[in-house]
C-alpha cells in the first residue's frame, strides 16, 4: 500500500520529462522538437470526431480562438507570469495591431508582413506611453489603469472616422502568396500556420530572454521588487521592457488576426478578451510558458468543444474555472523548477 503510494508520488510527468530532457542527447532533443513542431503544423489535417469541434469549423477554431489566444497568453505571460505585473487591458495592444493592418492594409495597400512589424511597433509605443507613468504604481492600481487603457482604445476606435466607427472596417486584405500558399478566406490553414510561426518566433525569443539576465531580473522583480532594486536590478527599465514586449506580441497577433477575419469591429476588443487571456495565463500556470500555452489552448478549445451544450456552455465553463483553480491553485502546469540536490561531499547530483 505505502509502497504503491510512494511509487505514485514518484510519478510526476513534469519532472520525469524534465529528467529525460536533461539526459537526452542533442540528437534526441532535435528529433523531439521537430516531431512536436511537425505535429502542430499538421493539426489542421487532424480534424476528426475525437478532437474536432462539432458545431464550428475545426481549422478555423485552430486559428481563432486557439492560436490567437495562445500567442496573446504567451505575451501576457511575460508581463503577469514572469514579472508579476497585473495587466487587465492587454486587449488594447491586440486592438492596436488589428487596426494597424485594417487601416494601413485596406486604405493604403501596405501588406501584412510590414503591418505585423508596424502593429507591433505601434503597440510598443502605446506600451511606453502608458507604462512610463503607470508602472510606478503598485499591483492593483496598475490593474485598474490598464483596464481603463483597454477600454479607452476600444472607445476611441468606436468614435474615430478612419477606424470606421461602430461599423468597423471590412474587406481587410490577406497577405500575398508565399511558396504558393494562398491566403484564402475559406481556408484558415495558411493563417494558422502563419500564426503558429509567429508563436514559435515569440517562444524562441521568450526562451532566450527567460533563462538569461532579463529573465532573472523579471523573476527577481516578481519575487520582491524592493530587494531586486537593492541588488542592482534596474526595476523600472525591466518592468517597462516586459510591458512593452508583451504589447508588441499582442500587436503582431492583432495584425494577423485582422488579416484572417477580413472585417473587424470595435466590439471584438472588449474587456472580456483581456480577462480571458489573463485566465489563460493563470489557468495554465503563470510563468511556465509550456503551461501557459497548454492552458490557453485548452481554455479556448473547451467552449468550442462544449458548443453542443449551446445554452449552458459558458455556465459550465465558469464552473470549471472555479473548480480548476481550487484543485490546482497554481494552474495546470505550475511554474516549479525541478530541484537538483548535490551531495555535499562528492558534489554529485542526488537523484530523488
Amino acid at each position, binding site marked *: 500500500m505505502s509502497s504503491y503510494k510512494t511509487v505514485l508520488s514518484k510519478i510526476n510527468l513534469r519532472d520525469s520529462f524534465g529528467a529525460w530532457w536533461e539526459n537526452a542527447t542533442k540528437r534526441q532533443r532535435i528529433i523531439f522538437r521537430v516531431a512536436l513542431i511537425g505535429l502542430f503544423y499538421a493539426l489542421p489535417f487532424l480534424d476528426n470526431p475525437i478532437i474536432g469541434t462539432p458545431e464550428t469549423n475545426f481549422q478555423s477554431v485552430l486559428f481563432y480562438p486557439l492560436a490567437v489566444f495562445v500567442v496573446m497568453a504567451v505575451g501576457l505571460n511575460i508581463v*503577469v507570469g514572469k514579472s508579476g505585473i*497585473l495587466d487587465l487591458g492587454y486587449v488594447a495592444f491586440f486592438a492596436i495591431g488589428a487596426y494597424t493592418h485594417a487601416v494601413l492594409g485596406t486604405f493604403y495597400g501596405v501588406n501584412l508582413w510590414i503591418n505585423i512589424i508596424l502593429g507591433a511597433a505601434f503597440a510598443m509605443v502605446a506600451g511606453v506611453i502608458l507604462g512610463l*507613468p*503607470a508602472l*510606478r*504604481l*503598485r499591483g*492593483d*492600481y496598475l*490593474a*485598474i*489603469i490598464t*483596464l*481603463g*487603457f483597454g*477600454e*479607452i482604445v476600444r*472607445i*476611441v476606435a*468606436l*468614435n474615430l472616422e478612419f477606424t470606421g466607427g461602430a461599423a468597423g472596417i471590412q474587406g481587410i486584405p490577406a497577405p500575398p502568396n508565399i511558396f504558393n500558399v494562398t491566403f484564402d478566406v475559406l481556408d484558415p490553414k495558411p493563417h494558422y500556420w502563419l500564426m503558429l510561426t509567429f508563436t514559435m518566433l515569440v517562444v524562441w525569443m521568450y526562451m532566450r530572454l527567460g533563462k538569461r539576465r532579463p529573465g532573472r531580473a523579471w523573476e527577481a522583480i516578481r519575487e520582491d521588487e*524592493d530587494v531586486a532594486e537593492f541588488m542592482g536590478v534596474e526595476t523600472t527599465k525591466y518592468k517597462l521592457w516586459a510591458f512593452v514586449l508583451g504589447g508588441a506580441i499582442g500587436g503582431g497577433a492583432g495584425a494577423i488576426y485582422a488579416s484572417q477575419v477580413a472585417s473587424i469591429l470595435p466590439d471584438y476588443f472588449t*474587456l472580456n478578451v483581456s*480577462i480571458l487571456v*489573463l*485566465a489563460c495565463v*493563470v*489557468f495554465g500556470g*503563470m510563468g511556465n510558458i509550456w503551461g501557459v500555452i497548454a492552458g490557453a489552448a485548452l481554455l479556448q478549445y473547451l467552449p468550442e468543444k462544449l458548443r453542443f451544450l449551446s*445554452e*449552458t456552455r*459558458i*455556465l459550465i*465553463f*465558469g*464552473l*470549471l*474555472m*472555479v473548480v*480548476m*483553480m*481550487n484543485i490546482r*491553485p*497554481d*494552474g495546470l502546469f505550475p511554474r516549479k523548477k525541478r530541484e537538483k540536490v548535490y551531495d555535499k561531499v562528492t558534489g554529485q547530483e542526488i537523484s530523488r
Partner: protein
Amino acid sequence: MDFSILWSEFFGLTLDGIVVGAIYALVSLGYTLVYGVLRLINFAHSEIFMIGTFTSLGLSIVFGYTGLEEPLGIVLFFFVFLVMALASGIASGMSAVLLEFVAYRRLRRRGANCLSSLISAIGASFFLVELFRLTTESKDWDFPRMLSKDPVFSISTAYFTLDKIIILLGAFGLMFGLDRIINTTRLGRGIRAVSQDEKTAILMGVNVDRVISFTFLLGGVLAGFASTFYMLFYESTKFNVGFLLGISAFTAAVLGGIGNIRGALVGSFVLGLLQQYSSVVLGYNWRDVVTFVILVFVLLFKPTGLFGEAIQRARV
C-alpha cells in the same frame, strides 16, 4: 466641448451625480472591505449586486405590483420598500458569504497566489451571470413604479424627487451604520485588525475565517441595499446589470484608495459627479475616457489614491 450646459444645468447634474455616487459608494464599499482583509479584487461582487436587483424584482412580482400606473401610498410604499431592501440585503449578503466559501476559502487556506483567487472569482462571475441569463431568459425586466417621480421640491435645476431623497438618506444611513459596526463591534475591530496585519491578528486570537465571512456579509448586504435603491431609481434590471456598475464602483474604490473606507465613499461621489459633468461637456461616449484619464492623473500624483491606503504594508 460645451461648458454652457454644465453651468445652466449644474445643480441638476450635481444632484444626479450624487445619487449615482451614493449607489456606487454602497457597492464600492464591498470591494474595498474585501480588499482590505484579503488583498483580493472580488471580481464577482458585481454579480452579488445583480442578485440583489433580481431579489427586489421577485418581491415586486410577489407583491403583485407591475407597470407604472399606480404609485403606492407613502405608508404602504415604505413597508414594501423596506421588505424589499432587507430581502435583497439578506440575499446578496448570503450569496457573498457563499461565494467566499466556495471560490476563495480553500485557495486562501492554501496560501495561493492572489491571481488564482482572481481567476476563481472570474469563473464564479461567469457562472452567476450565465445562471441568471438562462433563468431570466436574457430579458430586460421592468420594475414597477413605486413612487411618483414628480419633484417634491427643487433647487434651481435640481429636482428632488422622493426616490432620490430616499436613496440619499438611505445611503448615508447605511454608511453611518457601517462606520459604527467597523469601529465599535468586536467583529468590526477584527476586520480592522486583519486589515492591518493578519498574522498578528491571528496571534491576538482573532478568528480570521469568521472575520472574513463577516466582511463578505457586510459587503454583500450593502450591495443588496444598493441594488434596491438602483431598482427604485432606474426601474429595470438585466442579467448583466452588474458589469458596468461593478467597474465604476471598483474604479471609485481605487480612486479613493482601495482598502480605505472613507476613500471608497469620496471616490464614489467624485466619480459619480465626474461622469455627469464629463458626459455633458464632451458627450456621453467620451465619459469613460475622461474618467480614466483623470484617474491616471490622480494616481500619478497620489499613487495610492485620494486618501491613500488605510493599510500600509510593512517595508524592509
